[in-house]
């Protein structure tokens, strides 16, 4: 694998107009003072993310690619963990820090031939709690990129955050595969973003099931000339897959199972939820699967990639944390073993929400579970036991205010119920009946 800049075959468009040309992407590098730095990226503009990774790959030892929405504290902690000294950002609250600068102050036209093997440090899409750093390189991220343009020419729309694994896959497919990449302005209302992509003739689109449901509610949806519909980041359910097949009869519909931890996944294209049982013997794309006590283990092709947070067996299979059920020739996802709640692609740890709830004065005990939602996959539901004599209406307000102050929006309980008590087990722990996550 060469460096990204040498592989770029097309630029980036915002709506119908070219924002950055392929030549500009190929010919931009970091300023000299940055060249030996480990660099963190916290960029809200998706075009800037593309600009930055093209300029830095092959030039710096490591890029820590964070979502533009990452909280300020998490940015500090993750930069420390990754040993980053430089920060490129468009966030005013971060620019005051030592080592922080805007992208345009960090890049310069003309680049040295880059020979550095740059580490691409991606993060898991956890919203509550600190995201985990997952080390990649360009080769591992671009493994599934098709090197030939799709027949008839593909126009990829980007509605994902490119700092996320799935978003970066779209970016790399377009840049390296020679397809066109169209970015919608993330500041526009969703309906207008869809209209922008339709006007630009987007044929290929990859999003979470939650965003696909939202797209289906957009009046402009029929104007999208889609030939490829890709779903990832959450479990795709059958009603949604069927609705997409009806809305886009000319499109191939793929849902992707990917494990950020293992850095790989595979896609299913038969329009049915789950995947064929036969994949447990032979999965696509060289991936190998194992089902042990209802838990999916996955092995990436090639050398095993160890990591500090990975649970890997001696054969190189990584424990995914995803529970499976096999029935009638089909494997279906049941949810996470940890009780992790997937709210529209954002992963919420119930324990963290419980910790915030029980820190509120007057709360005796709290239990947080996932509640199935046909719209967002799952929502956070909380049961709370109050100290005697408290006014429930007032307590509700206090509790929700505390949650909003300390938790990301997806983690704030959407359903809050007051209960008289909880079942605890022999060890005095809460009985957390595993509920379906998606």
């Amino acid at each position: 694998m060469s460096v990204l800049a040498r592989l770029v075959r097309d630029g980036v468009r915002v709506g119908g107009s070219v924002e950055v040309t392929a030549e500009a992407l190929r010919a931009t590098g970091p300023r000299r003072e940055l060249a030996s730095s480990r660099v963190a990226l916290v960029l809200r503009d998706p075009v800037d993310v593309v600009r930055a990774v093209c300029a830095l790959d092959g030039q710096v030892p490591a890029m820590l690619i964070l979502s533009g929405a990452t909280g300020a504290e998490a940015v500090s902690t993750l930069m420390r963990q990754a040993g980053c000294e430089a920060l490129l950002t468009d966030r005013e609250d971060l620019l005051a820090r030592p080592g922080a600068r805007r992208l345009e102050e960090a890049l310069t036209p003309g680049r040295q031939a880059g020979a550095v093997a740059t580490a691409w440090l991606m993060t898991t899409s956890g919203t509550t709690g600190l995201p985990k750093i997952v080390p990649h390189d360009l080769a591992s991220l671009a493994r599934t990129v098709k090197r030939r343009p799709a027949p008839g020419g593909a126009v990829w729309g980007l509605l994902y955050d490119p700092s996320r694994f799935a978003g970066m896959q779209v970016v790399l497919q377009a840049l390296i595969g020679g397809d066109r990449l169209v970015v919608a302005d993330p500041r526009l209302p969703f309906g207008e973003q869809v209209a922008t992509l339709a006007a630009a003739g987007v044929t290929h689109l990859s999003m979470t099931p939650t965003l696909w449901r939202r797209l289906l509610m957009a009046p402009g949806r029929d104007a999208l000339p889609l030939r490829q519909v890709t779903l990832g980041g959450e479990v795709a359910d059958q009603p949604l897959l069927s609705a997409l097949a009806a809305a886009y009869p000319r499109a191939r519909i793929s849902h992707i199972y990917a494990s950020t931890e293992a850095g790989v996944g595979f896609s299913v294209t038969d329009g049915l939820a789950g995947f064929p049982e036969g994949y447990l013997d032979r999965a696509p794309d060289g991936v190998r699967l194992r089902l042990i006590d209802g838990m999916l283990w996955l092995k990436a092709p090639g050398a095993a990639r160890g990591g500090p947070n990975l649970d890997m067996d001696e054969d190189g299979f990584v424990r995914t944390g995803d529970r499976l059920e096999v029935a009638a020739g089909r494997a279906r996802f049941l949810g996470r073993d940890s009780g992790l709640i997937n709210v529209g692609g954002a992963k919420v740890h119930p324990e963290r929400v419980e910790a915030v709830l029980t820190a509120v004065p007057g709360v005796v005990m709290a239990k947080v579970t996932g509640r199935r939602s046909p719209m967002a996959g799952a929502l956070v539901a909380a049961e709370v036991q109050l100290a005697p004599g408290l006014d429930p209406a007032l307590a509700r307000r206090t509790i929700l205010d505390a949650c909003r102050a300390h938790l990301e929006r997806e983690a704030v309980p959407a359903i809050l119920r007051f209960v008289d008590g909880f079942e605890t087990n022999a060890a005095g722990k809460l009985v957390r009946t595993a509920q379906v996550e998606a």
Partner: protein
Amino acid sequence: MPQLDATIRQVFGQIWQSEKTSPAPELAPETVLLDTGLDSLGFAIFVSALEEELGYDPFALSQDAYYPQTFAEFVAFYDRFRQAA
């Protein structure tokens, strides 16, 4: 149907108040739901709150996936599943 329409409006107002600081938008029959300003998560919470209030969720009951675009379509969808629920 008028009662159902009123209940849905009332719950929408409550969700809006808890999610936003601005006044809730006017809901006309032809109002496009995506244009109200509620995002995916807000909409999911709205549907979940309606289930608490009405005792059923047509999106979960429906055999076919249906994605109403206007407020009138949304109310009609709930009305269609009222008897079945």
